[in-house]
């Protein structure tokens, strides 16, 4: 019968990580815990959206960084019309740009990875064109409220938690969410059963676009101006979080809450390595190796 290798692996990982973490100077402080959560927030928000896309069987989007950057620029640029208008326009941009890709993937079964690489560069090129290559500064005030901290934690952390719960509820309790698992596991069967395959995939992408847009808005508020490489390694970090959460890249399996765990885990590992004085390079390397390990594990479990 099914041996639950996932939890076993997680336990082993924690057994290695825990002594390392606890013995690290300044790890067990409230301030550090806050720092970990804060750094997990933006990657986490993007990763929650990416989880739905992956569960619905469209693997990954390679255009996350560029989309978030574009949203940040639109947000900052339209701040002159007030925070609400700017936020709504930003969210709309993110959803529209992402859902267009989702429609092509959903209805035409286009290869999502290559398509999103192309889309990423199109969006990146578009944002250079939009900004003229110079940083976009905030055209108005009012965005500081997005940087507020509540009970010592930035607002983005609460948004992350709320989104994780919302996504989990969608996946487990709504028709569209449950259909995502079916479409992701066996697209041909879902098609033959008359499920609205294209629509289900497009909904997953729309939600992912919303999450990306929220990331972009928070990035903009935090940095107060946006350059073309504002979002940095967001794409890969988000993918790493989803995969570390045990979501199968081929689709049909996964959970938003476990992605949340993946995002926090990445933040904890980065934090421990940072506090112990390891370079960014080592942090990324460890992340990559961990993801590779989880991919192999998830696959081996799925195959049996």
């Amino acid at each position, binding site marked *: 019968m099914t041996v639950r290798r996932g939890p076993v692996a997680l336990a082993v990982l924690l057994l290695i990580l825990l002594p390392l973490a606890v013995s690290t100077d300044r790890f067990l402080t409230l301030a550090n815990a806050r720092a970990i959560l804060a750094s997990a927030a933006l990657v986490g928000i993007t990763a929650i959206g990416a989880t739905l896309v992956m569960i619905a069987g469209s693997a990954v989007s390679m255009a996350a960084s560029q989309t978030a950057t574009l949203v940040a620029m639109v947000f900052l640029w339209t701040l002159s019309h007030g925070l609400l208008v700017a936020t709504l326009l930003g969210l709309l941009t993110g959803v529209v740009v992402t859902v267009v890709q989702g429609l092509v993937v959903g209805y035409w079964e286009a290869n999502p990875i290559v398509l999103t690489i192309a889309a990423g560069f199109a969006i990146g090129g578009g944002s250079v064109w939009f900004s003229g290559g110079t940083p976009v500064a905030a055209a108005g005030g009012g965005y500081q409220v997005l940087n507020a901290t509540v009970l010592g934690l930035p607002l983005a952390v609460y948004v992350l938690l709320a989104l994780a719960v919302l996504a989990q509820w969608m996946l487990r309790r709504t028709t569209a969410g449950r259909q995502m698992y079916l479409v992701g596991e*066996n697209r041909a*069967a879902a098609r033959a059963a008359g499920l609205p395959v294209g629509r289900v995939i497009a909904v997953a992408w729309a939600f992912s676009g919303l999450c990306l847009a929220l990331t972009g808005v928070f990035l903009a508020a935090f940095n107060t101006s946006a350059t073309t490489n504002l979002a940095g390694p967001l794409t890969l970090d988000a993918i790493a979080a989803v995969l570390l959460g045990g979501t199968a890249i081929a689709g049909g399996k996964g959970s938003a809450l476990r992605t949340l765990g993946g995002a926090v885990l990445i933040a904890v590992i980065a934090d421990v390595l940072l506090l112990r004085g390891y370079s960014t390079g080592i942090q990324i390397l460890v992340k990559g190796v961990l993801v590779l390990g989880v991919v192999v594990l998830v696959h081996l479990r799925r195959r049996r």
Partner: protein
Amino acid sequence: MSEPLVVIDALARSFAGVPAVREVSFTVGAGEIHAVCGHNGAGKSTVVKMLSGQLAPDAGRILLAGEPVLLGSRQAAQRLGVALVDQELSVVPALTVLENLMLGDIDAPLVKRRRAAVARCREVLGDLGLDHVRPDQLVSTLSMGERQLIEIAKALSQRARVVILDEPTATLSEAESRRVHAAVRRVAARGCAVVFVSHRLAEVLDLCDTVTVLRDGRRITTRPAAELTVDRLIVEMLGEAPHRLSANRRPDPDLTHALRISRLRVPGRLTDFTLTARAGRIYALAGQLGSGASDVLRALAGLHPGATGRVSLRDRAVPFRSPVGAARAGIAYVSNDRKGEGLFLDKSVAMNLVGTRLNRLGGKALVPAARPLAARAGLDEVRLAEPVLALSGGNQQKVFVGRALDRPDVHALLLDEPTRGVDIGGRAAIHRLLRDAADAGLVVVFASTELEELLELGDVILTMRDGRVVETYQGGADGTVLMRDMTGEKA
């Protein structure tokens, strides 16, 4: 013929304790075309698999030119000169004819000697009457029949002594089939032993020298083809043929609930299929692979986007070129490919049962919602949370059929081979489910190749061959007659 090239000596094989082939023996001489005939489950494919190295026999021997051989795998068999040509072609469409002939040929040098290879390729193609095919032509530009011939050419170019053809003409047009026949004759004339498996009995009698008939895993007879007729052959295959005297059901007079199909056409597969199927009755499409029976169902389910015709259900047009449209119009489809196109194997039984009606569930939990359906389909509700993968074939099929039951939005139930791979108990249960569904006012249409199933379940039986309906039987029907319709001469 001094000594037979192939001797099959008391081969036996069982699966999970159930014997599929019991002590089958026959011989094939060099230059002989030897047919193996039998109805579903007679053991043909098991014999073919053992002879081509894909399956190890439990008992018995295979002798090649007097030597006992062990064929561990298809590749090993190939090395010993035994080549198999079956529905699952091994020609790669993305490669040229020449490349395909050389692919996996262990004798071919790693570095190609092009000129010699081209010359040899031309020679083999010429042998099979494929002079118009160029060695550097992509196989994807060839017709299915020509690909089949390339498969045979491949076997020849790899110096096969024994060529096994498993249903090589099932999906081919008549002209294409004739070319395959001509090629098979040439192969035999070169001194190969040919084993030919086909459900087209007229073809078998026309082409083959000798016929071995299998029934229930046993060899019934081996005779020269000249001594047989199609009717005689059918009697040998079926033994006591199942038949029935009258129709099972009276038609529901309410024609407004009917599924009306008019001139349904799928290019290359199905020609002008017309049927008015009334609610409350079960319609059986009797046809072998390539007959078009499956294609009727697939087209109605929206899986042949290139299909044309007119379809209505309950007097409303069915947009049958998309699966979503067909489902919305009230058509539920149960594919013959349970794993690839049917169930979500890693998902729970509950999820599979309610997966197509999630919108009626609201936010309710899956297992309680699936409980009544499980009871209806005869599944143990304790297993609702288990993945479908853990169920037996019969129970999996019950889940698949159960998925379409008790849905007020479903008016027509289409099933392709509803009991394939299902044990006897499961079969009866599924048949009962279908009868209940018809009684509840659904239109039920199924496709099958099994005579017992067709006769037991079909209120109206349509025999099909080569993409057309051969005959429609409303009342009494006889297995032998159905068999002749399905397998006889080309229309």
